């Protein structure tokens, strides 16, 4: 079945193709009840995400892509269908499918390092080993260039530093899949471009499986191995685009911009289909 394979294929491209399926969504649909009325948010979705893949869910706002992420994280249950991680059914939130939010969501009552340590406290291997937890947290802060701020309170960090600390905290429990809801929307373009670089750096180093959500075509092209394009409400998969570019990618690279154009065109086409009469 979907067990970790020990073989390490030669190139990154074939590695992903040959990697076992990490996360499988089978006919996952979601209907919300709102004031006695059923509102369909997601039509049945089928999606397979392989180990080490970076998949971007892309679509107009309100297309249900964030809902899908919430379902994978276990915050909500699908109305029908099944989500499995390594063959095991997802039922509730947990650090194997760790979610990063639009806001950094760092705990203000803890210092930076204690935020990173926090999630490790509930892991079997770290449970009763505080020294090991601190050591791992220090390594991650170093990776994020935050080691000097380990003992700082959260409010003393800049926006970009907070997001890097949040990334360190998310990576600490070594999640099987990292879910990112709109990475770094509240930051200025320069800081964001750097964080995209760091995110890819980590991706290359740890071969982490990542699913993120965005409505920015450039971000999708810069980060994703595959970009899943959603149609408007109710959400369903319209098509997917493979971004066949070497990493790390620069968000201002013309090739990235080329892919971004393709992705944006698909979105506009979708909008013309679903919302006739509205200006494009």
């Amino acid at each position, binding site marked *: 079945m979907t067990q970790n394979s020990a073989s390490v294929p030669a190139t990154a491209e074939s590695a992903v193709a040959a990697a076992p399926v990490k996360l499988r969504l089978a006919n996952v649909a979601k209907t919300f009840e709102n004031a006695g009325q059923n509102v369909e948010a997601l039509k049945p979705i089928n999606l397979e995400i392989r180990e080490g893949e970076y998949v971007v869910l892309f679509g107009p706002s309100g297309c249900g892509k964030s809902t899908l992420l919430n379902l994978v994280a276990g*915050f909500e249950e699908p109305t029908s269908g099944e989500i499995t991680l390594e063959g095991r059914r997802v039922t509730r*939130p*947990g650090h194997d*499918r760790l979610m990063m939010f639009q806001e950094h*969501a760092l705990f*203000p009552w803890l210092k930076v390092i204690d935020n990173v340590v926090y*999630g490790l406290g509930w*892991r079997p291997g770290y449970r009763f080993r505080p020294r090991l937890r601190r050591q791992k947290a220090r390594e991650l802060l170093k990776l994020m260039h935050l080691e000097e701020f380990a003992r700082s309170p*959260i*409010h003393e960090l800049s926006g970009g530093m907070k997001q890097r600390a949040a990334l360190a905290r998310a990576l600490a429990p070594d999640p099987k899949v990292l879910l990112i809801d709109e990475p770094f929307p509240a930051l200025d373009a320069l800081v964001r471009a750097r964080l995209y670089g760091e995110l890819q750096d980590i991706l290359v180093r740890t071969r982490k499986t990542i699913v993120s959500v965005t409505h920015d075509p450039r971000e999708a092209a810069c980060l994703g191995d595959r970009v899943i394009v959603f149609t408007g409400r109710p959400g369903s998969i319209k098509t997917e685009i493979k971004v066949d570019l070497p990493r790390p990618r620069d968000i201002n690279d013309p090739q990235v911009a080329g892919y971004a154009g393709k992705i944006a065109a698909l979105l506009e086409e979708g909008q013309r289909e679903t919302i006739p009469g509205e200006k494009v």
Partner: protein
Amino acid sequence: MKPSPEKKFRFYVFGFYLLLFVIWQALFSLRIIPDYLFPSPLQVGWRLWELGNDGMLWPSIKATLVRMAIGFSIAAGIGLVIGMPMGMSRVVNSCLKSLFLGLQTLPSAAWVPISLLIFGLSDSGIYFVVIMSSVAAVAIATSDGILHIPPIYLRAARTLGTPGYAMPFRVILPAALPRVVTGVKLGWTLGWHGAVSAELIKSSIGLGYLLYWGRELNDAAQVLGIMVLTILFGLLLDRFLFGQIEHRIRRRWGLLTSA
């Protein structure tokens, strides 16, 4: 950092109080009310100085503060223990909130007769009044604080794998802290009312007792002086002790707008 408005206007504030004293002194000098009923600020200050020299003042201030420190610590503890389940369960909240809101409308002094009946003239009666006056405010603030926790913290805690048993003390209480501290501050003020009210009737030491004793002696200067001292200490602790703690927590939690 921007200076707070209070700091910027402190000369005006100082001037305002100076003016207040001048008006007080002027009213006294007009002799509309006989001076044994309406003493001058100087007479009040002199009486306090005398009380201090007689060794009456400091032990009384200390006694009231110690009673508050002990009584209010117990009250805050009880308030937290009751407030947490209130914040986490809608059923518990619906039942207890109306009760506590009702109790909060009861003036602190209204607890004194029942405490006399139960505890007689012992010190435990004062603690009882302090606790009963302040527990409701702490409990309500704790439950409100928990109900207003930004959901993002709870979601983050869950995705980081926090087990249910660890949520209350590792996440819920710290996340609710800014509002809890505001409630603690209010509870302290109400407890302070309670302590002084109880001392009026059933103590032989304390600020409340000095008030009572001043009335027995027909000494308006002492009564007014102790009133001023009671205000001063209440304000000092409210603004400088709890106010500072509150300010620091709000800054850390990112709740100050001028950050």
